[in-house]
């Protein structure tokens, strides 16, 4: 088991490293390098050359990558081209704000999708299933910005109870940001729930037809006990992975939704970086999101191991 865990950890580290190589390489492809970016298109060639020298851009890409990655490991992502401030300080602040939305969204989406998925699975092909499946289909078919826009129309314009636009700075205290978290969370939860419900429903249906559930039923256990004690743990296993995968989607969804509400999180920071072509910021956000994604998958795998005794013996079929 320890071998399996350590192998899994190693492969997570390798994946993050590879992802950072890819991000670095992609950004280096940029026509005109960072020096030209800083000085603008009209800069004299001499000035560009001087700045290149100063920033160490004349050195081979491999060395620059090593510099950057060793800094990144220590939490130093360089300096923003626009503000001149260290990237990491700004990034952690925005990350804190985004975590507020992300944690709330995951809590809401996971709870509601498990409830809805179990209901749909147990009442397969009857009206509760039809209702849930139809809502799921609609939820999957509208992009986050549409849900967000409709929410603004409903809860900020028609019935003005919540702010449509956040005016707080990124450094505002958490308590001030809380009212602003509500609408983005609803918008993201709607879409995320739609994706997870599908998986929960399918696996509940599979498990309810399995032999051990039939046995439990024949033992005379009540439906509630059969579902909660026998079926749910097995049914939630595949769902765990889907939840982890949704976290990757969440990072993208957050970018869109934060933009709609002007919420000072990583998503807005990302879009500003793209607007200003602020490459160090872009690289930092990309690597941090990749690391978050890999960590979530790792957690899902280890969680699956905890839930499923068969995986603990070390015999695990390769994916």
């Amino acid at each position, binding site marked *: 088991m320890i071998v399996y865990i350590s192998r899994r950890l190693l492969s997570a580290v390798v994946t993050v490293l590879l992802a950072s190589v890819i991000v670095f390489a992609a950004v280096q492809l940029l026509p005109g390098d960072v020096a030209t970016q800083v000085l603008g298109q009209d800069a004299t060639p001499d000035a560009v050359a001087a700045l290149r020298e100063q920033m160490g851009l004349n050195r081979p890409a491999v060395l620059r990558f090593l510099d950057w990655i060793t800094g990144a490991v220590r939490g130093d992502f360089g300096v923003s081209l626009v503000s001149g401030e260290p990237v990491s300080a700004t990034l952690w602040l925005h990350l804190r704000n985004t975590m507020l939305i992300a944690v709330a969204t995951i809590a809401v989406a996971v709870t509601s999708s498990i409830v809805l998925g179990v209901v749909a699975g147990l009442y397969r092909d009857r009206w509760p299933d039809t209702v849930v499946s139809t809502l799921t289909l609609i939820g*999957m078919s509208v992009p986050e910005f549409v849900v967000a826009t409709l929410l603004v129309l409903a809860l900020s314009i028609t019935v003005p109870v919540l702010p449509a636009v956040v005016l707080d700075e990124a450094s505002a205290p958490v308590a001030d940001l809380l009212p602003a978290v509500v609408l983005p969370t609803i918008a993201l939860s709607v879409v995320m729930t739609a994706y997870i419900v599908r998986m929960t429903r399918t696996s509940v249906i599979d498990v309810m037809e399995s032999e051990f559930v039939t046995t439990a039923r024949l033992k005379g256990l009540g439906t509630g006990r059969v579902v909660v004690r026998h079926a749910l743990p097995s049914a939630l296993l595949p769902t765990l992975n889907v939840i982890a995968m949704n976290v990757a989607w969440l990072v993208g969804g957050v970018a869109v939704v934060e933009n709609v509400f002007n919420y000072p999180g990583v998503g807005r920071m990302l879009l500003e970086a793209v607007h200003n072509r602020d490459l160090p910021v872009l690289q930092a956000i990309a690597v941090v999101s990749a690391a978050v994604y890999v960590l979530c998958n790792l957690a899902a795998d280890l969680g699956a191991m905890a839930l499923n005794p068969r995986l603990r013996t070390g015999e695990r079929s390769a994916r």
Partner: protein
Amino acid sequence: MTGSPHGASGPAETTGSTGTARTTLRSLARSTPAVVGLSLVALHVLLALLAPLLTSYSPTANDPGSALLGPGADHWAGTDAYGRDVVSRVLYGGRYALTVSFAATACAVALGTVVGCAAALKGGRLDDALMRVLDAILAIPPILALLVVVTVLGTGPAVIVLAVTVVYAPQVVRVVRAAALGVAPLDYVTAARARGERTVSILVREVLPNIAHVVSVEFAMRASWVVLLISSLSFLGFGANPPTPDWGLMVAENRTAMVVVPWATLAPIIALATLVVGLNLSADGLSRAWGVDRAKESS
């Protein structure tokens, strides 16, 4: 099928699309969702093709004299802040959405299929290395990867197609590779190898026809995500450049005037949602008709 993760009747497990085109069509026609889905998509294609006949207004020309009108006899869904007819922009927006999304999905699925099949047939070191790199690419969220490509190469339809290909091909590779691995050990592939056929011809003549159903379902499913992704990108201002008629861009332009002219925002939203619902239902219908397990692939 007790506890089997493969769900209902699975001809896919044996030799792929064993049924003829006719049985597929029949089971598609029997399923209401599939019929609704395919009709929705067909309706969108038809409306996009006939756009110039259905409206006499230009989707891009400004007409300040008739700005911000409500729905009426002249403008069925009103006009936006620049006086452009909303119906006309939605119709032409369908052209843009369908062409760009179709091109992007086709490129991603084609590239993914070729690489996935090659990885499955060749196996070994190449396969291992490829899977590692794909894991790393998949760790970067799609919209972030798209934004990086757009930052590097600028905006425009060609860049979007390229970016979507880069982002979605790895996911297609995974699905196709898994399907091809299911086919590779079968007798007819072994026979072809024993006959000494080249990998390319084994791929084209033996493997591809037998995973065609997986690729088709993959195409329909990807298409719905690509439409969503591209519209999100336009909404953020990094996709279609104004004044291109694009649904995501229309929502972004008109949402500040939502109280005055709600239809300028709602019309593109309805168009976008119906197209994606159509694509999703079609993907569902196709996967049921062929017994491809879609829930397993939803990632």
